[in-house]
């Protein structure tokens, strides 16, 4: 391989990126060394098994990925702002929309939600950590390394350019040679390990580690949605793992599962991809639903309306999510019967989703609604998500879908559900639980600016795209002619896109501003909350979460205690030594070996891949013979931490 093939050359923007990456790295190394932060970094973060810290790292990574994916989006919108623009060439544009899609779904939406689940769920169920804290660290580091591997592609070797769906045979060696597509396969594969482990970990955590008295039907709705999400992950992700492995075999070892030669079957890839891909959509939307349930109930100062209906509708959605994948390719010619069946199952998903919308509305009915920023995002969700929902039903009508498929109508639809659903939830959840993570709230006034600029920008960006779709503009074109008449609406759309970018910058500024100036919380109950995470005496829970595991007597236990004026005070005699897991550097080291193995496979350097895989097995072997049962936190230390006066 020649140097001009290893490093991406010839584009000034890429050189700019090279320089900024090197400068950032040097800056970080300098900072860590000058302020002697290396030990702090290792002890507090790289080796931690604390679910709250892992959650924060997930969220920080997700925000970085949101920035990366957002820059991709703005580059695309800039290119499409006017007809026949020369800003990006076709290959460059194709790489950017591929990385935009992949990063936003796999490396932004999912980790953002998993991060919030990590921070919140153990606290909500009254647990001290997750069932397998060490495995949780492995989950995070494999996700992080997978994301990093995928991200370096744009300066080293070139990014994948076959779309985030990577349809075969376009993604095969014959039509897309080189490391680009391999980055997609290996990056997703490594990150996928982390996701599957998270699924298992939180399923067990929620089923086995709930505080005494918290029956399944007393669980907070966010915990319920996480539980259902984990079940979907456990059933869906193995499909992705297998599909990616088969394509990797095709590309690296000459097999013919999906290729043009050797009677490969390209339709099989599309089926496997969406058999995972559709449940994946629900993996990123159900936790969002859960968060909105919590937030709407909290700020309406009222019990969730139709708690059981919410759960049953969620279970129905989860079941349906595995029965609708064909709607992603109604146009494949599967025949009238198949298309009819999948049309109906897809439309049927609208029923439980509609039920949820009405339950949220009636949670506010007879409530006392406070317009805090998390609540604004939740209201924005209802108003905008409904547009995504109804256009989803339109797309489900196969006969009509033949006209919407592969157009901007579809692009607009899935941005209306994924942004108004998932991204709004990420922002709402981040703001809502921010005091739990950092001990202070984000500034509300600046937060409202973020909400309005983002929401208006979002509609200005995506609403016109429905009409572009109906006017025949296909997705993934890198430019269009003047005569097509698509110019004005595209310009409007681009303006909206940049408004969203500005809103993101204001959000980041708000983080800085609030870090400097926000009033620090003095209690653990920043929003007058309902669920157990707000019941810790300090704003940020100590690493063991609860000095004494709470006993739950009903739904919204903490809220009811407060209403009855019976919040228990912690007494010194109640405290017993607390068993906690030890930190470990092994997950980080293991993930680093995964990086070596992945990078080797991307470039087809088998010596390097094998060395990396040996390293991975080495760490597994080491772990198998490591006898570490954790340690006990002494009663004195707990009393000290909780500041209990004897």
């Amino acid at each position: 391989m020649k140097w001009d093939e290893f490093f991406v050359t010839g584009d000034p923007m890429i050189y700019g990126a090279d320089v900024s990456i090197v400068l950032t790295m040097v800056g970080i190394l300098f900072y860590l060394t000058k302020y002697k932060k290396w030990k702090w970094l290792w002890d507090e973060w790289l080796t931690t098994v604390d679910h709250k810290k892992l959650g924060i790292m997930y969220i920080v990574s997700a925000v970085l990925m949101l920035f990366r994916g957002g820059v991709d989006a703005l580059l695309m919108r800039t290119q499409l702002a006017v007809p026949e623009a020369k800003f990006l060439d076709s290959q460059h544009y194709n790489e950017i929309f591929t990385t935009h899609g992949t990063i936003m779904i796999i490396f932004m939406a999912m980790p953002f939600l998993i991060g919030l689940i990590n921070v919140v769920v153990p606290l909500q169920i009254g647990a001290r950590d997750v069932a397998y804290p060490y495995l949780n660290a492995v989950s995070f580091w494999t996700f992080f390394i997978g994301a990093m591997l995928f991200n370096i592609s744009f300066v080293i070797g070139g990014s994948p350019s076959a779309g985030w769906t990577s349809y075969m045979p376009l993604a095969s060696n014959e039509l897309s040679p080189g490391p680009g597509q391999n980055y997609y396969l290996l990056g997703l594969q490594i990150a996928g390990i982390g996701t599957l482990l998270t699924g298992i970990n939180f399923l067990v955590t929620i089923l086995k580690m709930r505080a005494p008295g918290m029956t399944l039907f007393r669980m907070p709705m966010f915990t319920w949605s996480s539980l259902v999400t984990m079940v979907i992950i456990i059933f869906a992700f193995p499909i992705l793992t297998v599909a990616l492995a088969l394509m990797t075999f095709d590309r690296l070892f000459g097999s013919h599962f999906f290729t043009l030669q050797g009677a490969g079957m390209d339709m099989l890839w599309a089926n496997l991809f969406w058999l995972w891909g559709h449940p994946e959509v629900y993996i990123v939307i159900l936790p969002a639903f859960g968060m909105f349930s919590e937030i709407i109930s909290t700020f309406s100062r009222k019990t969730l309306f139709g708690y059981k209906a919410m759960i049953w509708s969620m279970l129905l959605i989860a079941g349906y999510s595995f029965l609708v994948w064909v709607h992603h390719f109604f146009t494949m010619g599967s025949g009238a019967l198949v298309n009819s069946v999948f049309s109906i199952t897809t439309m049927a998903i609208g029923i439980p989703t509609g039920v949820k919308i009405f339950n949220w509305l009636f949670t506010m009915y007879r409530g006392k609604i406070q317009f805090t920023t998390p609540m604004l995002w939740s209201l924005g969700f209802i108003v905008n998500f409904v547009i995504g929902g109804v256009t989803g039903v339109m797309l489900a009508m196969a006969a009509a879908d033949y006209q919407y498929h592969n157009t901007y109508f579809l692009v607009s639809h899935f941005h209306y559900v994924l942004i108004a659903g998932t991204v709004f939830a990420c922002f709402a959840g981040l703001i809502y639980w921010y005091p739990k993570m950092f001990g202070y709230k984000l500034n509300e006034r600046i937060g409202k600016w973020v909400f309005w600029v983002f929401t208006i920008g979002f509609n200005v960006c995506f609403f016109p795209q429905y009409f572009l779709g109906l006017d025949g503009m296909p997705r993934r074109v890198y430019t269009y002619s003047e005569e097509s008449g698509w110019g004005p609406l595209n310009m409007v759309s681009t303006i909206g896109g940049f408004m969203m970018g500005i809103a993101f910058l204001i959000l980041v500024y708000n983080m800085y501003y609030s870090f400097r100036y926000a009033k620090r919380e003095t209690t653990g109950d920043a929003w007058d909350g309902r669920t157990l995470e707000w019941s810790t005496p300090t704003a940020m829970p100590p690493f063991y979460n609860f000095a004494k595991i709470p006993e739950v007597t009903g739904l919204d236990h903490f809220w009811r205690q407060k209403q009855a004026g019976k919040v228990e005070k912690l007494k010194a005699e109640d405290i017993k030594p607390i068993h906690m897991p030890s930190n470990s550097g092994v997950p980080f080291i293991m993930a680093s070996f995964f990086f070596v193995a992945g990078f080797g496979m991307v470039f087809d350097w088998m010596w390097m891949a094998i060395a990396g895989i040996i390293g991975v097995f080495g760490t597994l072997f080491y772990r198998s013979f490591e006898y570490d049962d954790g340690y006990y936190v002494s009663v004195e230390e707990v009393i000290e931490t909780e500041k209990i006066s004897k």
Partner: protein
Amino acid sequence: MRRFKPFFTFGLLMAVFMLSGCSDMIVLDPKGPVGAEQRDLIMYSIWFMLFILIVVYALTAFIVYKYRDRKNHKGYDPDNEGSHLLETIWWIVPIIIVIALAIPTVKSIYSLEGPPEKSKDQKPLVIHATSVNWKWVFSYPEQDIETVNYLHIPEDRPVLFKLTSADSMASFWVPQLGGQKYAMAGMETELYLQADEQGTYEGRNSNFTGEGFTNHTFDVMAMSDAEFEKWASETKADAPELSKGQYDKLMLPGHVKEMTFSSTHLDWVDHATNAEYALDARDRLGYEEKLPHSRAAKEEKKKREEEMKKLEESESESHGDSHAH
């Protein structure tokens, strides 16, 4: 309510502004029975969707306004946790809506599998459409002619497209005539379309196929039956025959101008049963896909473009300008 007003006003204004342009949007301005059936289904569903949006927005506005936290707040009931009657209503109403949408959808799905109802007794014109990165090859087996990147069809007569691909998965779409269908290597899919008005319609591949995808387009000219027959017989008489060598060059990734031949490639290959043909042809020409960012790729691309130019010349030399259309 005041704080939500700008938002709703803005949305409403935008909707009105865009709906006013509705009739100009090509999907809603079909020129044949297939597209018309789909347009009707789309409009039918849009009314339901507007109804749903109005109900949800009205309810949201009412509840948010009435139960906002303020002085003299009335009706607060923190333990109001459900209502069987209400919940039954919003389980049943969506079910009814889904049924109302499902019936015409299923009807249309079945009817679109065959030729349009009104021209059932006519024998459809059969055209094989083959996608190869990034061009369309159209074979008329009955007329024994072949065109590249353009189509002539008679009006008021159903056309049965037999779709396949020589390489990437493509999607054959002429928005004003009707919805799309995939064209896949080693597979044959069928699509009925029909034009009721004479004119030129844009067609394209709408499924991403890599670098040249954006310009993977073709024109469809709908004309009277007599004109079509005249064009077909003249083409058969005047256009050059397609040689295997020329066809191999068509298999290279790239764009070519419109071309016309008096024989079809179906004589020696049907991509619906032979998925490897294009790759073999590329091998025969010594072509190999290079890493997209490398210098080698730029050279390879230049070589391909020269081959395409030679192919175009070889086609136009042998039959002058007779394929004017």
